[in-house]
């Protein structure tokens, strides 16, 4: 810049108007929800801006507090918040990159000391421990109306005498910095894409899939310990569940001793995380619950949520201790290494280890599917709730199977089929959640000492909730019957048969 100004000062005088230095943060969730949807969220000095990938400003907001926003509720009401809510909830925002912008404005003056051209020198750096060259270093030259001749002269000095090149397309600097900072943007997704090779044996496939679920497990540990948001634990638990399902759905891949040991470990990981997850779910539903009961019962609910909140803190501490314990560290690292090992000892293999995965998967999927259709067709309005619960478990198994192995089958049809299945499964999931919640509210009531008025209020509130939930649950039965009918229609059955052939 110095040398440019010297060159310019042979013809004109110049003046430094301002020199600014600003730090912006790029925020996104652990699983890149904004980036995946084509958004960038920039924050600096209490101002947040939502940009698209071309760097265009979509919405902005001023944050009332000094601290950078962490959750959706940190944003003021408005378009920015609305856009974020549907994409981000309930995830926390993390700092994915820090960007420093240094900007100097100069004016070039004629003999009357009148400004004829404005120059803005802008340098954008990625904040890092060792100094990096700027991501972008540009001189913006703005003409003033009526001074076109001077503008031409100055741009000529800049290009010919100083060897600058005129900018062509401007890159979106925010996107660029994200990608530089995190060499692998989108380095985490709760469901990693599983690309199985048709020629994989059962063992190859199982090791590949479990390798991936264990990676998900370990990647979420720190977020749970730091208590960043509730999705870390959720993803952790889903990965544990998927691992367990795989073992029971594909039998005989590993030797029984291995399978049993792994199942025991997974079970432990599942049960030690259950309580915290339950609390998370309740607290997340706080507003929803409050809408379910009349206003008079709401203070009772607040008290209930206070209790849950306290319990949650204890559970979170306990879980942190477990995750940091030697015992747990050994378990998770051991299995991750095991699944990554190129070769397993023959004694570790089960009977089905060397059978083609496509064959094993087709068989298993078919079996589940046929069972679901047969059972479902016998359902009528007298069907017990417990039978519907059983159905949910079957659906879940089928869903896991399809997700594990979809890369082995025709992609479009598979996705269509999974979509259909999701609809029914969601309904079943809600049905089940309502049962579980009613039961746990009942337990809470029973565990409460009943000698204080305060507790009576809580009990009344929870009673109101239970009544509401039970009503909702009955409605869901009908919805399920309808959804199932579509899922099991002949067209879908035919589609399934062409898809899964063996």
């Amino acid at each position: 810049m110095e040398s440019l100004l010297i060159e310019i000062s042979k013809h004109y005088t110049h003046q430094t108007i301002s020199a600014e230095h600003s730090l912006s943060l790029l925020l996104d969730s652990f699983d890149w929800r904004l980036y995946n949807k084509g958004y960038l969220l920039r924050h600096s000095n209490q101002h947040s801006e939502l940009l698209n990938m071309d760097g265009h400003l979509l919405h902005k907001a001023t944050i009332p507090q000094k601290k950078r926003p962490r959750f959706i509720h940190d944003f003021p009401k408005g378009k920015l918040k609305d856009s974020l809510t549907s994409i981000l909830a309930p995830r926390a925002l993390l700092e994915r990159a820090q960007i420093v912008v240094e900007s100097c404005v100069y004016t070039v003056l004629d003999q009357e000391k009148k400004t004829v051209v404005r120059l803005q020198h802008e340098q954008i750096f990625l904040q890092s421990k060792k100094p990096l060259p700027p991501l972008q270093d540009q001189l913006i030259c703005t003409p003033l109306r009526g001074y076109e001749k001077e503008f031409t002269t100055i741009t000529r000095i800049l290009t010919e005498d100083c060897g600058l090149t005129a900018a062509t397309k401007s890159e979106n600097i925010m996107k660029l910095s994200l990608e530089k900072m995190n060499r692998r943007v989108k380095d985490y997704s709760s469901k990693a894409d599983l690309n199985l090779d048709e020629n994989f044996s059962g063992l190859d496939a199982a090791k590949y899939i479990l390798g991936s679920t264990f990676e998900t497990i370990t990647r979420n540990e720190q977020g749970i310990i730091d208590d960043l948001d509730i999705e870390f634990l959720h993803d952790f638990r889903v990965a544990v569940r998927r691992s367990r399902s795989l073992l029971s759905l594909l039998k005989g891949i590993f030797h029984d001793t291995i399978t049993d040991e792994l199942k025991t470990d997974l079970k432990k990981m599942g049960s030690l995380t259950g309580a915290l997850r339950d609390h998370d779910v309740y607290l997340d539903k706080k507003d929803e619950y409050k809408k379910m009961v009349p206003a008079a019962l709401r203070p009772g609910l607040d008290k209930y949520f206070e209790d849950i909140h306290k319990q949650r803190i204890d559970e979170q501490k306990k879980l942190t201790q477990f995750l940091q314990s030697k015992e747990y560290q050994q378990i998770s690292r051991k299995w991750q290494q095991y699944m990554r090992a190129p070769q397993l000892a023959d004694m570790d293999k089960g009977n089905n280890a060397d059978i083609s995965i496509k064959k094993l998967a087709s068989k298993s999927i078919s079996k589940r599917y046929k069972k679901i259709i047969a059972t479902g067709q016998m359902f009528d309005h007298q069907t017990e709730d417990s039978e519907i619960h059983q159905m949910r478990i079957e659906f879940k198994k089928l869903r896991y199977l399809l997700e594990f192995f979809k890369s082995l089958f025709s992609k479009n049809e598979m996705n269509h089929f999974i979509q259909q299945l999701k609809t029914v499964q969601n309904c079943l999931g809600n049905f089940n959640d309502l049962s579980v919640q009613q039961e746990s509210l009942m337990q809470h009531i029973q565990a409460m000492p009943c000698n204080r008025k305060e507790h009576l209020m809580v009990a009344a509130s929870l009673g109101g909730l239970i009544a509401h939930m039970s009503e909702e649950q009955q409605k869901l039965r009908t919805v399920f019957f309808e959804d199932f009918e579509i899922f099991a229609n002949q067209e879908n059955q035919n589609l399934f048969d062409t898809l899964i052939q063996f």
Partner: protein
Amino acid sequence: MKIIASYNIKGGVGKTATIVNLAYLAAADGHKVLLCDLDPQGSATFYFRIRTHKKQTGQKLLRGRKKLDKFVMESDFENLEILPANLSYRSLDILLNKETKSKHILKNIFKSYQKTYDLILLDCPPNITLLSENIFYAADLILVPIIPSTLSIRTYDQLLDFFKQEKIKRSKLIPFLSMVEKRKKLHTEITEDLLNHDKHFLRSMIPYSANIEKMGINRKPIAAEIRSTAAKQAYLDLWQEVTELLQ
């Protein structure tokens, strides 16, 4: 779009000082402003450090927007553009006289700027001429700076008579006190008298100030200076009152 002129039959009363500051303040308020210098002396042009183009002539002014656009200059301030004046404008009256409907030429020229600017401000030369008559018809408001002295008030009365005679809307004329010196007994007496008895006068007035005089050296509106002065405040108040009149 509204047109505001700064005018007085009398010279040296602060017409230019006023319009230059109002132009800056209006632009700073976010209005898109064209300051049109109509005085061959080009003082407003000078205050904004603009050099005029030799090819810009009175003839071209009267031809309207198509010929004028290329002479419009961007000032150093956001939203503020200047149409400079030069000595050739001294023959404007002769040129106007040759036109038909000679009193409405300016009004028609400015019509074509309707969509481009929110405000056009005019710095006018003194005396009653055909050019000033054009200004009277074109402007929505005519600010008349008046020094609290007998002679100055006399010219204001002359102006009122002229408006009556020509049947131009009296309400366009907005007198206000300029270059008021508190220490002069006569100034305070006349000021009090005028403000009490003539309801047309604006409440704000511009004091006599060395800082305003220095604008000729600094070549920058006093209102654009960062430090606050009584003079700057006076122009701010004046602009506030004018804004209210515009609504």
